[in-house]
């Protein structure tokens, strides 16, 4: 989801731009040590690879399709620093050349789809690898989990930015949990594909997978996760999604939002306060008739989950329609 101009207010967008620019600078500095001459064309080729993967629809259910974010995959394939630089370039080119995502929102998009996905994917992977045995099955398992989490965290980034500077005013922990819940479902696809691609590369050129190289894994024992593991992974994702929507969302709505507290501390108090009053579009969950009723919130959450999916389908249809037209 590329944020356009005007979706998030100017101050927040500029702030995000500063954060994104510093993360890129850090990435360049750190990558610079490994990014020798030979890796400049390589990084460009990888950026093109990620771009093509993002455009490529994979099947989800009955012909409906999704596409990859790719940040976690990039981090595992080429390491987090080059991965961050590559993702930033991809998002920058999308904004500047393809007008995909607003120019003023470039920082926001780099944070959500680059910084957060790369960092989450990589850190979750490293963290899991501490406890998992050092073999190729673990690489795929940890990679799939990292990719799944990266999608969830990326959506939280979006909600966070929206709650700080959303001009359509919506800020609710309920929304937060609902978004996270939806993306816990969407992330299953990202996880499976990330593991699948890693497996395919490990089978042929294990030396090209950064995440395997650092653990000295030069041979793939298996190139695919077992059916049982895949089933577990999917079930886990669905369970987390359901939990977030039915339990955490209603609970969270009773407490003041952590993000809003941050917003108040940061001096966005006025705007954030307005939002927390519930006068916001998506606060319709609570406001319209079922205020305080936990069961009502649960239902609202589930409806929200469904609505988001319907919106997703509509989006896909629109995007696919456009692709077909431009496919000469």
């Amino acid at each position, binding site marked *: 989801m590329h944020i356009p101009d005007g979706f998030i207010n100017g101050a927040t967008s500029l702030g995000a731009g500063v954060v994104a620019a510093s993360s890129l600078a850090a990435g360049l500095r750190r990558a610079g040590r490994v990014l020798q001459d030979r890796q400049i064309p390589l990084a460009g080729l990888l950026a093109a690879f990620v771009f093509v993967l993002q455009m490529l629809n994979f099947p989800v259910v009955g012909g409906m399709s999704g596409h990859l974010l790719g940040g976690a995959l990039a981090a595992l394939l080429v390491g987090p620093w080059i991965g961050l630089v590559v993702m930033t370039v991809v998002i920058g080119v999308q904004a500047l050349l393809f007008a995909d995502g607003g120019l003023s929102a470039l920082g926001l998009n780099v944070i959500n789809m680059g910084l957060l996905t790369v960092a989450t994917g990589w850190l979750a992977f490293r963290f899991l690898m501490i406890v998992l045995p050092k073999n190729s099955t673990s690489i795929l398992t940890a990679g799939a989990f990292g990719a799944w989490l990266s999608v969830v965290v990326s959506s939280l980034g979006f909600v966070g930015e929206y709650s700080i500077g959303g001009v359509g005013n919506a800020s609710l922990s309920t929304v937060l949990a609902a978004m996270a819940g939806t993306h816990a479902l969407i992330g299953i696809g990202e996880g499976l594909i990330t593991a699948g691609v890693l497996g395919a590369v490990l089978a042929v050129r294990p030396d090209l997978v950064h995440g395997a190289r650092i653990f000295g894994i030069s041979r793939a024992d298996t190139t695919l996760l077992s059916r049982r593991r895949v089933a577990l992974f999917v079930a886990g994702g669905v369970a987390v999604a359901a939990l977030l929507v039915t339990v955490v969302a209603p609970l969270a709505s009773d407490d003041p939002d952590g993000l809003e507290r941050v917003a108040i501390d940061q001096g966005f108090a006025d705007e954030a306060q307005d939002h927390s009053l519930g006068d916001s579009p998506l606060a319709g969950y609570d406001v319209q008739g079922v205020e305080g009723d936990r069961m009502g919130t649960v239902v609202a959450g589930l409806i929200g989950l469904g609505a988001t999916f319907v919106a997703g389908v509509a989006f896909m249809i629109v995007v696919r329609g456009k692709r077909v037209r431009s*496919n000469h």
Partner: protein
Amino acid sequence: MAGTHTHALFVHGDSELHRLPASPKLGALGLFVLAVVLTPREAIGAFGVHAGLVLLGAWIAGLKPMFMARRLLIEIPFVLFAIFLPFVGGGERIEVVGLSLSIEGLWGGWNIVAKATLGLAASVVLTATTTVPDILSGLDRLRVPRLITSIAGFMVRYLDVIAGEMHRMRMAMLSRGHNPRWIWQLKAYTASAGALFIRSYERGERVYYAMTARGFTGRIPTFDEKARPADWARALSLPAIAWFAAGWGVVAG
């Protein structure tokens, strides 16, 4: 594979805007978008000025209305979201032809549609009048790190090549009767994506060899355009008006 055709973005022409060097145009676009984003949503007049400026740019560039309209389709998902807002928004409501709409939601929706459309339209005018290589060297002029513009250059150069490889693999799969519709049929998709990564990586190495063979030592030479102060002055005249309108909107609001 559709969508990667960067040459579909550029419209050949010999207008004033086509002739301007890329760096002042990029600077003007950035400043214009910023002015739009900072304009208070109640300043309808200022948005009128912004829209007039974009239309003026498109007219100078000789862009056809249909071309602009087609490129604007990309924002449809956000327009849908914006249309959604007045119905679910809280606060005071008004009746419009029998529908109860949230005033806050109406403003929110208007704000998103207006700013996203203006930002998008301005970007479209830029990419329609500036070739990709010129945009890259313009970014170089604007002090975007060389490493970034170099990587972006390689990326744009090889987009079509890699998309073509992916397309051929897909055709090969289809030819053998594989047309996946369900997520558990992903194995072939991930296998080809994996193969695509390896091919991209190996091509990256070959490109590096080809560069080395022509004396590459780590620094890609630039062939940047020279923008004169007069070019900057002309390019910046448009965002200057936008900033004036935005400022007037802030003061008046």
